[in-house]
């Protein structure tokens, strides 16, 4: 069992001085352990908090914004959805299966803390190059971990994305988004806690796993990190499933006054944050915590991150009702203490006072001011000369379709139960977003996006591009974006060049959300994603999860081409914006150039107009144009629909004559729409009335992918060849090379 070395807390000298001054004495071993956990970057957001406040977080639908376990959004008729994003990067780098599984478990508890039922998961993932056996091992086991957990607890995994880039070789990013559903008047409010209420810990027992997990996650990985396995938590999805049902039964009975998940920082964080938020104190007896290893010391009990535990607060008159429900579900529980009115967190252990400190002092770490400096590489890389156009553009398109960053994701999502719960209307692989049934006759689109290659080259416009792509994904299913959560993943924030890229992302998110009038209802920051072996940080990786509402009459359309002789339209302008594109990076081997910029003045109007057009039922298929550009978007639509097309590139609204830019530029926002010829004029009229560039560029026909210019064929590929290139990359690589795990 791990012994915690807390003689020298993992805190800065200023933090240590601040703690001693505030407390008026030297904190003891238990108190240091609690402060180390709670004041870790992971739990305290001490580097990022002042910047995160800049993000727009208000709106008519926002019931609970950032700072809670999850954001709460009104979706009408008394129903709310909750939304949160988490990552489990460090644990997954050491134990990919267990780390990814407990990542799912953690975000599910956040959703549950509000009293809402988790109804969907999405997993944005980032790994090193697929050619690396270490990356394949991580990838394979992360997918297994997500599947084994999500499938077991009966929450469908309806989407996600995966990006491969060598910068993630040692630090994979394993993010998970959870969506919850509940009734507004059943939400568990944080604010109705009173002195005397009882504090229960329910679910799993407390052991030596996940000790110091939060501070582990707030450090750089080293070559010794493999020996920090005890910092990785052990998943038990079966117990989680029982917790979900028991907690929701208790919420339904109206007996839960407050609830919090025990995640990073364990009891130290859970108790101090709850008490501090309520403006109260707590008296806790550690002898009543159910532990599963003998001889655990009080500091270890306080910071253990053993999984599948929740804090539940009830009135004493409801104690029996709670225990009856927990007994039915055969869940462990114990009453560990009660709320007090003096604001002090008092921890007793074997009749001794083990720790005593104001809850607010523990919960609120002193902020760490950070400075930023623009890294010089950014200007150096932006002026890359346009490379020569490949002679064989057929081969180029096929290479892009088979690229690990573009190819079919079926190998991944087939391992996820994406349908349990009877809510999934549009499933993975069918459209740009998943669509889920709500009980109020409306439907909800949900998507997640990241693009570390473009953010690396231009932290501001790269981040704007991620938001624009996420919103385009929603819009392509006829949804109106209503909220986002963000996850900002970087290297060491003490490095000014890293911190500058972080600040740029915040600026980008703020500007984009202001322009589109959509609130950010929560998020997460993960720093220290770098390792001492390679001495490199990951590429900056903001990830966005966005939800959109569809009204009841919105049609169910996907991105697959639907019918011969239909027209193909393009929406939006194609510019020479190949920086960070899949064409540059994987075909040309070029890291550089100018990334797509988005016109923030017209963005809202454009997205709203396209939503309205799709909503009105005149579009047969829709797909946004993103990775791989126009050529890949069209090819994907053809592959999914098993139908060919002919497109005339001369019709594409553009400012370039370079054929590679026309085919592969990743300018955004752009869409391809399929329409019946009789509806085409109406669609184009509506788009043009809103000053949106649009053109009819071709039609669905035959069994070939055909792109022409000046009556010359530019690309001609039989559909079956394209299907082959696109569909086999992952299964061929993963099922052949990683059969032994």
């Amino acid at each position: 069992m791990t012994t915690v070395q807390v003689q020298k807390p993992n805190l800065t000298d200023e933090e240590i001085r601040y703690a001693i001054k505030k407390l008026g004495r030297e904190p003891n071993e238990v108190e240091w352990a609690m402060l180390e956990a709670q004041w870790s970057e992971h739990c305290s957001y001490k580097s990022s908090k002042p910047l995160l406040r800049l993000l727009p977080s208000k709106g008519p639908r926002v019931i609970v914004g950032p700072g809670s376990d999850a954001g709460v959004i009104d979706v009408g008729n008394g129903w709310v959805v909750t939304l949160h994003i988490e990552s489990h990067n460090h644990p997954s780098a050491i134990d990919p299966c267990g780390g990814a599984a407990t990542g799912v478990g953690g975000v599910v508890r956040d959703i549950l803390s509000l009293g809402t039922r988790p109804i969907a998961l999405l997993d944005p993932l980032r790994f090193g190059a697929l050619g690396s056996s270490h990356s394949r091992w991580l990838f394979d086991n992360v997918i297994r971990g997500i599947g084994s957990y999500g499938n077991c607890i009966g929450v469908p995994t309806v989407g996600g994305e995966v990006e491969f880039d060598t910068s993630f070789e040692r630090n994979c990013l394993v993010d998970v988004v959870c969506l919850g559903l509940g009734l507004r008047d059943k939400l568990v409010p944080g604010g109705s806690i009173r002195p005397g209420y009882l504090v229960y810990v329910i679910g799993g027992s407390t052991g030596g796993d996940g000790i110091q997990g939060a501070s582990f996650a707030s450090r750089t990985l080293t070559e010794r990190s493999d020996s920090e396995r005890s910092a990785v938590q052990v998943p038990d999805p079966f117990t989680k499933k029982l917790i979900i049902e028991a907690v929701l039964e208790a919420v339904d009975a109206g007996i839960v006054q407050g609830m919090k998940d025990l995640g990073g920082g364990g009891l130290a964080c859970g108790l101090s944050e709850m008490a501090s938020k309520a403006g109260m104190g707590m008296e806790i007896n550690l002898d009543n915590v159910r532990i599963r290893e003998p001889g655990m010391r009080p500091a270890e009990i306080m910071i253990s991150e053993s999984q599948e535990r929740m804090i539940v607060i009830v009135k004493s008159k409801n104690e029996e009702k709670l225990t009856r429900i927990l007994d039915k579900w055969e869940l462990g529980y114990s009453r560990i203490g009660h709320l007090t009115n003096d604001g002090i967190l008092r921890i007793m252990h074997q009749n001794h006072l083990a720790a005593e400190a104001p809850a607010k002092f523990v919960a609120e770490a002193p902020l760490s001011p950070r400075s930023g400096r623009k890294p010089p590489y950014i200007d150096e890389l932006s002026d890359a000369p346009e490379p020569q156009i490949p002679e064989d553009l057929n081969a180029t398109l096929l290479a892009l379709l088979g690229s690990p960053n573009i190819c079919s994701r079926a190998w991944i999502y087939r391992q996820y139960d994406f349908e349990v719960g009877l809510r999934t209307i549009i499933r993975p692989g069918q459209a740009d977003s998943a669509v889920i049934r709500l009980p109020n006759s409306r439907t909800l689109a949900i998507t997640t996006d990241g693009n570390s290659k473009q953010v690396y080259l231009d932290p501001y416009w790269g981040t704007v591009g991620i938001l624009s792509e996420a919103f385009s994904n929603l819009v392509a299913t006829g949804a109106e974006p209503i909220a986002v959560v963000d996850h900002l993943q970087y290297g060491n924030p003490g490095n000014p060049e890293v911190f500058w890229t972080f600040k740029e992302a915040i600026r980008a998110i703020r500007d984009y959300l202001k322009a589109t009038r959509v609130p950010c209802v929560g998020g997460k920051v993960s720093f220290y994603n770098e390792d001492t072996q390679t001495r490199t940080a990951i590429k900056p990786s903001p990830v966005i999860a966005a939800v959109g509402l569809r009204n009841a009459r919105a049609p169910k359309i996907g991105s697959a081409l639907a019918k011969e002789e239909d027209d193909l339209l393009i929406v939006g302008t194609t510019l020479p914006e190949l920086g960070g594109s899949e064409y540059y990076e994987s075909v040309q081997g070029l890291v550089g150039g100018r990334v797509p910029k988005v016109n923030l003045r017209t963005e809202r109007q454009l997205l709203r107009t396209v939503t309205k057009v799709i909503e009105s039922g005149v579009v047969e298929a829709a797909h946004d144009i993103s990775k791989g550009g126009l050529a890949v978007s069209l090819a994907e639509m053809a592959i999914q629909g098993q139908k060919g097309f002919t497109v005339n590139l001369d019709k594409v609204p553009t400012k370039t004559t370079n054929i590679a830019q026309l085919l592969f530029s990743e300018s955004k926002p752009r869409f391809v729409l399929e329409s019946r010829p009789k509806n085409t004029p109406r669609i184009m009229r509506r788009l043009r009335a809103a000053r949106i560039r649009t053109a009819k560029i071709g039609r669905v026909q035959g069994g070939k992918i055909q792109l022409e210019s000046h009556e010359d064929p530019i690309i001609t590929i039989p559909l079956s060849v394209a299907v082959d290139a696109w569909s086999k990359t992952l299964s061929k690589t993963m099922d052949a090379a990683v059969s032994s795990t």
Partner: protein
Amino acid sequence: MGKVAVIQYPGSNCDLDALEILRDVVKAKTDLVWHKDLAHEDYDAYVLPGGFSYGDYLRAGAIAATSPSLRIVKEAAEGGKPVLGICNGFQILVEAGLLPGAVLRNSSLRFVCTWTRLRVETTRTPFTKRANAGQVLEIPIAHNEGRYYLDKEQIPELERNQQIVFRYVNEKKEATEAGNPNGSIDNIAGVCNQKGNVMGLMPHPERASIPVLSLDNQTDGRVIFDSMMRTLHGPEA
């Protein structure tokens, strides 16, 4: 009026889905019953839903098969009442010895979630009487342990007794390897007991019973629940 029990085990996760289809779609009088609360003779039909009862620990369905509820299900089965096991429910019925064979880990050694085609091999069961023999139903699967297995020599007997209810097939209605998603022996997707009143299948008919949730807006899974209603209520149902 026939009444259906959906039995809820710790770790069941398709219980509410089955309940929704039975109650709201085929309009059967249905209760969700906690496995320990199941009492004698209360119900006219039993459904064991999908999920991960007891976390699939030990073996899928093995622990739930020792639940006292299985004694009642067994008696009901002997009395001729319809009993349906879906996915994990099928695994439980096999583990409890109410159905022949075993359900093993998928041949891919991976969880598989995908839509499959099922050919109806017999219409003699209370769950297929409204289907046509040879009809193909599009119904999804989602499981890690779905590879049906029994000794090769026993298959002719199963065949003779008309105990093979569904087979996975390709788009030409043939039971080929390409149409087999999990390596099940002889492409078997669902079986029944000798009498025919106890049936289990790995695919999830409840996921193919509401148009908007299905691939092509079909409701192929409904025929299983509609058949059960006909059994409970006669031809007017």
